[in-house]
């Protein structure tokens, strides 16, 4: 499904990612853990195609097709979804209008039929209920006046709404209470399936209690320095990244 090959990304003169290799097969959930500043968000922005995050080397392919020449919206239409670590507020932009525009733009790009307002409203309301966002909140401009936790719920609402092929979750769990974590687990587990892949970036093993990963990778020094099964999460929580960080050197 998603293949990353020798990925090198330089920001402000520093090589943040340095020959990173990673492969997430369809149907699997992979977690990435790593110290602050190790480049986890950089990796997610690079996959999503943010301006300024063009790799100087390497390639990223989804189902064998390189993403690098595509703009962020084209990648989204191919099924790449990023749950942002700190989602922005977009004052003045009505939430429903924006999300329906986005959904239909994706559909149009894929040659699918657009969704009617009525149908959209129906699915939107269902997902809003699942993630626990009130209709009152959703009447506000996008993320306007939302708390950190509410913004994360909005990310999960969108992940459920867009039904992406490949989901990147950048610290979706940080700042969430147990109930919210359970909700995140619910959304991920309902989407989990043989055609879909997940890359879950996290610091904590608590999210992994709700979302059971197939593999866990440690990011340090700009590359994956260690990979293992689900049991690796506990080990990292107990003894930290130090032991693996030295492997990078």
């Amino acid at each position, binding site marked *: 499904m998603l293949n990353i090959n020798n990925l090198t990304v330089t920001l402000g003169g520093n090589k943040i990612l340095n020959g990173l290799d990673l492969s997430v097969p369809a149907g699997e959930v992979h977690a990435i853990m790593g110290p602050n500043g190790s480049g986890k968000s950089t990796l997610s922005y690079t996959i999503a195609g943010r301006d300024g995050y063009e790799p100087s080397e390497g390639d990223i392919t989804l189902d064998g097709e390189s993403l690098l020449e595509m703009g962020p919206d084209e990648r*989204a239409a191919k099924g790449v979804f990023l749950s942002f670590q700190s989602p*922005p507020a977009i004052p003045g932009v009505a939430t429903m209008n924006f999300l329906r525009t986005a959904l239909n733009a994706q559909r149009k790009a894929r040659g699918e039929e657009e969704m009617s307002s009525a149908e959209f409203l129906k699915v939107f309301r269902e997902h809003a209920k699942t993630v626990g966002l009130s209709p009152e909140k959703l009447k506000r401009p996008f993320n306007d006046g939302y708390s950190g936790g509410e913004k994360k719920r909005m990310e999960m609402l969108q992940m459920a709404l867009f039904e992406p092929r490949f989901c990147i979750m950048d610290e979706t769990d940080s700042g969430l209470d147990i109930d919210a974590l359970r909700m995140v687990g619910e959304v991920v587990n309902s989407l989990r399936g043989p055609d879909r892949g997940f890359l879950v970036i996290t610091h904590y093993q608590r999210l992994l209690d709700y979302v059971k990963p197939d593999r866990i990778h440690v990011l340090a020094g700009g590359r994956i320095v260690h990979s293992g099964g689900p049991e690796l999460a506990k080990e990292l929580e107990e003894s930290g990244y130090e032991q693996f960080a030295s492997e990078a050197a």
Partner: protein
Amino acid sequence: MSSPIPLTAFEDRLLAEVPDTDLAELLRSRGLPGRRTETWKWSDLRGALRDVREPSGAYASKAEAPITLEGATVLTLKNGVPQAPHGVEPKPIVKSGEKVGSTYVVEDGLVVSFYDQGRDAEDEIGAGEELSALAALRPLMSISVLPGFTHKIVLRRLSDGEGRHGDNVFVTVGEGARATLVETHEITGSPFVNSRTELELDAKSVCDRFIVQTAASEAVLVHSSVLRLDEAKDGETVKLNQMTLALGAQLARHETRLTHLGESEAKIDALYRLSDSLHTDITSHITFEGEDGVTDQLVKGIADGRSRGVFQGKFLVQRGAQRTDAKMAHHALLLSKGAQINAKPELEIYADDVECAHGNTAGALDPEALFYMRQRGVPEDEARSLLIDAFGGEVLERVKDEAVREQLAALFHGGAS
């Protein structure tokens, strides 16, 4: 006064038509206002009017109204000439045994009069006020909403050709009356248009005023508005809600001079949207003469291509004007490297118990929001367009009349095309 400068042939022509007063003196010594005039330094009218322009001929184009108002009386000026209202017989206006104009009772409580003359040129005008004074010399068109009445008026200014013309409109909203006044500038071709609106709001009156100027890439337009808001009576204040939507011209200046005589409330909002090499200048000069005047001003603009947006806002709070409450904000979006914004907020305060605030920003579209929207699948152009509409929406939201707001939003949205 600066030393006389060589006048252009066009300035000589204008001067020949002006009575010998301060106005003539100003024009003779300084020419038309432009780069060298402090209040016009970013709107070089003199430079834009180098060539001689002859008085405009008859209006010969067809235009579709950019905005309509349900139930309104529509009045039209064609190349500056007021058109007789339909289906109403004129009555002569006689002064000292001579006919000096015609008057029309258009509806109950709405009287429109056309005079053959303008007013005598004023003395004591300052540099920068020449255009307003020149327009005041034109034959006067007066519109009166009589005390206690409610009326909606659309005043269309249609212009074409490559000559010059202007108009001189005087609107009074009588005591306790309510008026919605929409003024349009619909210009094709490349004329020089010098318009003037004087608006007097008597005690307890309410006026919603909209000025809509569609894009006119080769025209030069100056519209001076002179507004007086009467003081409160029986505990009721005068309320003015003004909103200008300006979509640019070769050079366009929308100038508002407003005086709060006492307790009264004004919104002096504007929204401009420019592309290519269009120019728009939003200038306002608000004087707080009496106590308890309130002005809340929000101006936003968007400049793309090689366009230029100008905002000059001044609050003058006079000595006796205690408890003045004045807010001024100008925010601009620059969509290209070649676009320019010039802004000058100015406060001059001689009273001690006042609240004055001003803010001014200019910047690009939020790259974070843009990336986010694209990550969700919205193509770049559409994402930009949504963000631009959201930016302008903050001003449009302040328009209470939904039908008007929607038409303004559509004009703003299509403004760049």
